[in-house]
């Protein structure tokens, strides 16, 4: 007969072992899990590139790109009044040597303008060997991380070779990997030894719990007499000794480091780039998402105020690109770079200089499902957004943000 208890115990043990032994590496950073309207109508990244995808420890990688703060910002998401340009990686695989937004150092947090475009550059130095999916990332206060396109990057070599040397304003060259550590450990060990001695002194007084408990109850109000004069003197020595060491260490540290500053917590304000639309205006007339065909279809009223005919080459939203290969060609950078190389088609042809025209655009790809953008119709604010890239005959690009309500078509 089956022993139920034994069977359950074996099952629990096997399940625990499986969970404990199989810890799968993280393959992504939740870029698909954020709500579709959030990804399409907050921060729109484009032109994101990395200088290399394979490098050795101590070598540098540069990530560059642009981002646009969508004009139709969702009401229920905090605006980017306080934000920080970051990198999405699993722990410090790299150290960030420098970051710039429109050429201004991104060391501090920043406020951004809705409807404005900025370019960024982050210089990273490889620190430990790993193969990671790294993302551009913008942390927005009260809104959370807004994740940009990711790239697989492989770092080879040995972490023990890594150094992160800098020179302080007092002229000392230090390695940030280990700086101050020996001193901190020294003090922790010093006080730890004294604490251990203090505890062991009392614990090795003999059996302490039951006998002392009984004595306290027996002596009642006179229980304080259990503390001997020697022990009180010991307490006094420890009190004075601790105070002396604390005061001495404080002034000694001042002597060793006469020039110190408080932690810095400033913010900077960075002007936006010039308007990337460059005289092209596009208004949304209508838009629908065809569920069976996995296709976004929208009509744009486009006015061309430039001196050259323009055509649509690309639509991008939520870090996915739908390309019109007749105008602009792009290939996926790696296995996790969502590019629909032939995903965009439109009717209406070129828009001549000074002309206003209706263009019917369709963006089709399985990415609507695999990247969970089709879930937009179940969001609390079913409006979509994105960037449309127009190209003139010389390949000059105009970037125009579009967006509006989206109707689903189920049949």
């Amino acid at each position, binding site marked *: 007969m089956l022993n139920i208890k034994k069977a359950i115990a074996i099952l629990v043990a096997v399940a625990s072992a499986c969970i404990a032994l199989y810890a799968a590496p993280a393959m992504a950073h939740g870029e698909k899990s954020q709500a579709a309207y959030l990804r399409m109508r907050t921060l729109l990244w484009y032109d994101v590139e990395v200088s290399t995808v394979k490098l050795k420890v101590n070598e540098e990688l540069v990530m560059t790109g642009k981002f646009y703060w969508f004009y139709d910002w969702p009401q229920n998401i905090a605006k980017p009044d306080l934000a920080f340009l970051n990198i999405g990686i699993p722990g410090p695989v790299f150290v960030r040597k420098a970051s710039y937004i429109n050429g201004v150092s991104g060391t501090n947090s920043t406020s951004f303008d809705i409807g404005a475009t900025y370019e960024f550059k982050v210089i990273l130095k490889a620190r430990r060997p790993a193969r990671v999916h790294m993302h551009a990332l913008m942390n927005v206060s009260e809104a959370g991380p807004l994740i940009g396109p990711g790239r697989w990057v492989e770092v080879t070599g040995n972490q023990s070779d890594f150094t992160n040397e800098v020179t302080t304003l007092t002229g000392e060259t230090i390695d940030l990997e280990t700086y101050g550590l020996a001193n901190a450990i020294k003090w922790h060990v010093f006080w730890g030894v004294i604490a251990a001695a203090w505890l062991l002194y009392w614990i090795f007084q003999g059996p302490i719990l039951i006998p*002392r408990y009984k004595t306290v109850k027996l002596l009642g109000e006179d229980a304080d007499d*259990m503390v001997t004069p020697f022990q009180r003197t010991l307490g006094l020595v420890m009190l004075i000794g601790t105070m002396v060491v604390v005061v001495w260490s404080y002034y000694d540290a001042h002597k060793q*480091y006469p020039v110190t500053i408080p932690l810095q917590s400033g913010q900077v304000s960075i002007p936006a780039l010039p308007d990337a639309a460059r005289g092209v205006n596009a208004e949304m007339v209508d838009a629908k998402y065809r569920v069976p065909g996995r296709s976004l279809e929208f009509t744009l009223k486009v006015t061309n105020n430039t001196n050259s005919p323009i055509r649509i080459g690309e639509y991008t939203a939520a870090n996915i690109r739908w390309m019109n290969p007749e105008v602009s060609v792009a290939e996926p950078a790696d296995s996790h770079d969502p590019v629909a190389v032939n995903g965009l088609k439109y009717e209406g042809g070129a828009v001549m200089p000074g002309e206003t025209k209706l263009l019917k655009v369709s963006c089709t790809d399985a990415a609507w499902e695999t990247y969970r953008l089709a879930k937009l119709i179940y969001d609390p604010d079913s409006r979509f957004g994105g960037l449309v890239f127009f190209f003139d005959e010389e390949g000059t690009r105009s970037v125009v943000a579009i967006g509006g309500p989206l109707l689903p078509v189920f049949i």
Partner: protein
Amino acid sequence: MSAVQSAITTAEQQHRVYKAFDWIVIPIVVLVLIGAFHIHFMLTGGDWDFWIDWKDRRWWVTVTPITLIFFPAALHYLLWTNFRLPFGATLCCAGLLIGEWMNRVINFVGWAYFPLNMVVPAEIIPMALILDAILLISRSLTVTGIIGSMVWGVIFYPANWALIAPFHVPIENNGVMMSVADLIGYNYVRTGTPEYIRIIEEGTLRTFGEDVTPVSAFFAGFISVFMYFIWLGFGKVLSRTTWVKRL
């Protein structure tokens, strides 16, 4: 003659049993204490203690002593009123540091690869030794609460300056002056902890200029006094033997 007889018949046997009781109970109490105090401090002190670039002269100085005095106060009540043992604070703080060092070395360095100097915990043993010493000398929880808790808060910053002073040396990074701690925080990428999330240097004590630390430290000591007595009360409730008797 009673049907049930004690197995202990001699003083020597009794001594051995008492000693065995100590060896069983004390390690269990220490482990429970490390776990409970560590969780408490991660939830209340958290980032201020995790990161070197959170250890500022306003919030870290204020938050840490106040949230740290809870467990030492409760244990003071338990160990002093029942056993006249004056090591509750040292036991708590030493236990917490053991847990913190394990956490920093295994989790922060071993799993997440942060450099250890970025995540060194604050030094809290001197405060604990002083609190215990004042209890031993005064033999009074009231005196310990008033004087000891005030000193507890006041000496936290000077006791840690020897550790953190090197990290406050100025440095230039791409045209911006930062402390070494700021630069470490900027260099070693924390995806979920952006620069602005740090609660540092915020407050309205600008009248005091750069001498804000003593004010923060005295405030921490003042609040610690109240917290000490509140947690003595928790200690009193939690050290009742009512439930044990029922068992």
